[in-house]
């Protein structure tokens, strides 16, 4: 087996037709070529077949018609299978289900072991691969003890140990927190620099913008097609078309488009710096001084004593047995616990300590909870319905201490807690039964249960007549999440607590789901929402609370909390993009009142200060 030549055509789809056994057609006639050394981003909404492409490339699936050539070999040729697979590294989305072994070095060696590489060479390759992903020193760690980002790195190392000429990432960052995602994207860039051809499949435009070439797939019933193909700037600038394909447009393009709608001819770009330059060039020196916009109404930062729906008084929490202790028990060497972990975020779902948390949430408020993974967000949320009890301090629900068992039982009803990926907890044969689980547990009469289920399904915009009798497992991802939310709403809570409600959804479903949460809040529910997206928090919440290492470090209206970029950066967070841009524009001499911005409001404030007449301004591009 010789390694694939440079300058070759690495991937060639020739009039490929493919459909799944269940009858869904993915492609009817797809053509696509990828050359050695390229860095290609494959973008597409749900149903555009982008994940199928990854499997077709790696000979995991074969086309029904046409052919897929990888390194010049046909994927249907059984003798070429191992040649193709060993030269192609494939990394999947979920960090939890692609690792085979319990120990990292065995995991990394798995691929080359299958190739029959001898033991000495195996050792060299394992070290080399772990070096490349920055995880030397972790050889004897258990794969289980790693964070999501670290697991993805190990998966990449496992692929690298086979010395591939090409790497395919199938939404490899989708389930990571912002920190894990950033660091993984940097690693992918490095791999490309080292000469590996990179194919990156993603929902995210900001990731696609790093590639040299962007291919956008458009799904349709007649089979997905390549809709756009070109450099990131050329493709991503065609934001209108992208928006029509359910893809989230990068902030900079979005702003440029909003300005264009307002009559300002500014070319969209994916680079923030460039947009800033273009805007400065377009600045109208004769713009009249703007009247200051109405001062943004600032919600009260703190609430009145006693009136709060839920109140944390000096709450501290520490986990009984640290997770590391359990892990250590199985370890040969106790020093493994001291290794530099936590550099790439921590496993979601585990419990973290809280220290002296003081927090009051009023009736009908919508409060956002920010902080990177491991800051204690989930722990805080689980105190709200008495799943966890503080080691010291009190949690009061409507003035009653949750330490009291009867109060805690009531809390299960009045506080609806929606976990991350709540659709993973669906279990019943029909949507109806699943949603009815809560009300039935509360011991409601059958007709009350029925009313509650219908109301809850209505609330999440799932038509009870259409969905109630269906199996929850037949629904799409977005619908499943709505059904799971209905299961909590059916208990008629006063307070809705959401942990990362939009995690893992594609851009359009994400916007839909957040709009739904906003509606629920408008209908009178009090909402607490933890999120990694500062933009979402700034846009939706009356008040934002920032946690860092189990302490509340910032709290107040979004514009005050997000005001200081330096302070946010120190705790691993960033400003919402429109606000950051507004601050930079102000530094360039634009007159922008200090308030919280969305893309629309920023464009509206900016437009009058820009020269609509492009001819009057030397064109920048």
């Amino acid at each position: 087996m010789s390694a694939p030549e440079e300058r070759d055509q690495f991937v060639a789809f020739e009039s490929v037709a493919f459909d799944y056994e269940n009858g869904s057609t993915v492609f009817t006639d797809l053509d696509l070529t990828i050359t050695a050394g390229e860095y290609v981003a494959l973008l597409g909404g749900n149903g555009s077949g982008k994940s199928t492409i990854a499997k077709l490339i790696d000979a995991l699936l074969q086309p029904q018609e046409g052919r897929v050539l990888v390194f010049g070999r046909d994927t249907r040729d059984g003798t070429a299978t191992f040649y193709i697979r060993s030269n192609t590294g494939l990394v999947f989305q979920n960090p939890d289900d692609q690792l085979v072994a319990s120990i990292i070095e065995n995991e990394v060696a798995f691929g080359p072991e299958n190739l029959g590489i001898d033991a000495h060479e195996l050792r060299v390759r394992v070290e080399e691969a772990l070096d490349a992903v920055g995880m030397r020193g972790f050889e004897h760690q258990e794969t289980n003890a790693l964070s999501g980002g670290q697991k993805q790195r190990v998966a990449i190392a496992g692929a690298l140990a086979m010395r591939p000429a090409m790497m395919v990432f199938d939404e490899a960052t989708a389930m990571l927190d912002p920190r894990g995602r950033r660091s993984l994207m940097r690693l992918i860039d490095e791999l490309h620099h080292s000469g590996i051809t990179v194919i990156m499949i993603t929902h995210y435009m900001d990731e696609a913008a790093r590639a040299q070439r962007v291919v956008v797939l458009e799904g349709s019933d007649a089979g997905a097609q390549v809709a756009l193909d070109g450099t990131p700037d050329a493709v991503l600038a065609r934001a209108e078309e992208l928006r029509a394909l359910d893809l989230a447009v990068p902030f900079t393009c979005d702003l440029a488009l909003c300005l264009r709608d307002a009559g300002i001819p500014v070319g969209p770009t994916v680079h923030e710096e460039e947009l800033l330059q273009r805007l400065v060039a377009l600045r109208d020196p004769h713009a009249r001084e703007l009247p200051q916009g109405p001062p943004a109404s600032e919600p009260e930062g703190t609430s009145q004593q006693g009136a709060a729906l839920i109140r944390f008084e000096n709450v501290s929490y520490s986990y009984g047995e640290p997770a590391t202790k359990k892990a250590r028990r199985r370890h040969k060497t106790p020093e493994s616990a001291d290794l530099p972990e936590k550099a790439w975020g921590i496993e979601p779902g585990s419990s973290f300590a809280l220290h002296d948390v003081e927090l009051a949430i009023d009736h009908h408020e919508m409060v956002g909870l920010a902080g990177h993974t491991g800051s204690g967000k989930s722990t805080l949320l689980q105190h709200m319905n008495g799943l966890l009890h503080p080691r010291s301090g009190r949690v009061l629900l409507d003035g009653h201490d949750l330490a009291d068992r009867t109060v805690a039982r009531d809390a299960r009803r009045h506080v609806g807690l929606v976990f991350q990926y709540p659709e993973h907890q669906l279990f019943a044969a029909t949507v109806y039964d699943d949603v009815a689980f809560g009300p039935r547990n509360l011991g409601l009469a059958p007709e009350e249960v029925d009313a509650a289920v219908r109301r809850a399904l209505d609330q999440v915009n799932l038509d009870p007549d259409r969905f109630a009798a269906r199996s929850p497992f037949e629904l799409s991802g977005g619908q499943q999440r709505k059904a799971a939310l209905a299961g909590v709403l059916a208990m008629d809570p006063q307070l809705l607590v959401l942990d990362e409600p939009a995690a893992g959804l594609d851009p359009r479903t994400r916007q839909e789901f957040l709009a739904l949460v906003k509606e629920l809040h408008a209908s009178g529910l009090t909402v607490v929402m933890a999120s990694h997206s500062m933009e979402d928090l700034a846009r939706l919440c009356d008040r934002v609370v920032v946690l860092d290492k189990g302490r509340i470090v910032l709290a107040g209206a979004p514009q005050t909390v997000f005001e200081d970029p330096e302070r946010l950066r120190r705790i691993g967070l960033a400003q919402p993009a429109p606000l950051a841009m507004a601050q930079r524009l102000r530094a360039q001499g634009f007159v922008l009142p200090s308030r919280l911005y969305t893309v629309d409001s920023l464009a509206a404030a900016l437009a009058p200060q820009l020269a609509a007449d492009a001819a009057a301004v030397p064109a920048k591009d």
Partner: protein
Amino acid sequence: MKLTLTAALFALVLCAFTPFALAVDATFIIIAYGVARITPKEVAATLWPLLVLVIMTALLNMVFVQGGTVYFQLGILVVSEEGLLAAAFLGCRLLLLLLVAALLTLTTSTFAITEALEAVMRPLTMVHVPVHELAMMMGIALRFLPQFVAELAIIRRAQLSRAAELSFNPFKGGLSTLAALIVPLFTSAFRHSETLAFAMDARCYHGGEGRTRLHPFAFTWRDGVALAVIGSMTVCLVLADMW
């Protein structure tokens, strides 16, 4: 190698018929723990849940073995001298067996145990037992076990949040509650297994044929020492039993 020696140790403990022989065994095992530098605390933590089993067995023996002076009688329960001795003896023997097993699990990674099992069972391939596949399955099971434990904990909390009574009382809707825990766990397992199968294929997995090992089995001087020690222990034991 370690696996074979552990098996030998197991057999030795089972072969100890007198208290003295047992004491000899115990000495060796404690020395082994010393060599492996495992603290009593770690051992206690591992064995704690299993102690119930030891005590139960001891109690049963106490009641069933009769003879000698009767110390205590309650209905049909008769506690006699021999019963007590048997209980103490068997209890100690079981404890030692557990200690041997713990010695293996505390010093060896699960993956290594799986590999060792595969090596020991290798001859069985001659009679068409899919040894490699069995070992692979065991390895994957061990890899996913802690993950499922964590997932189950999250599912449990989520269903508790929906006012589930986790009493498992079959007369009080306990069964549906059980389904609320088990079904999500199984769907998760199916979801994982589908991707895992693709991930293994993608890395050229094609069964045990032609696979190499990161850790090939090699007989080192340490194994020699261990073999010698166990050999001497066997001799001591035979002597002790004859005594």
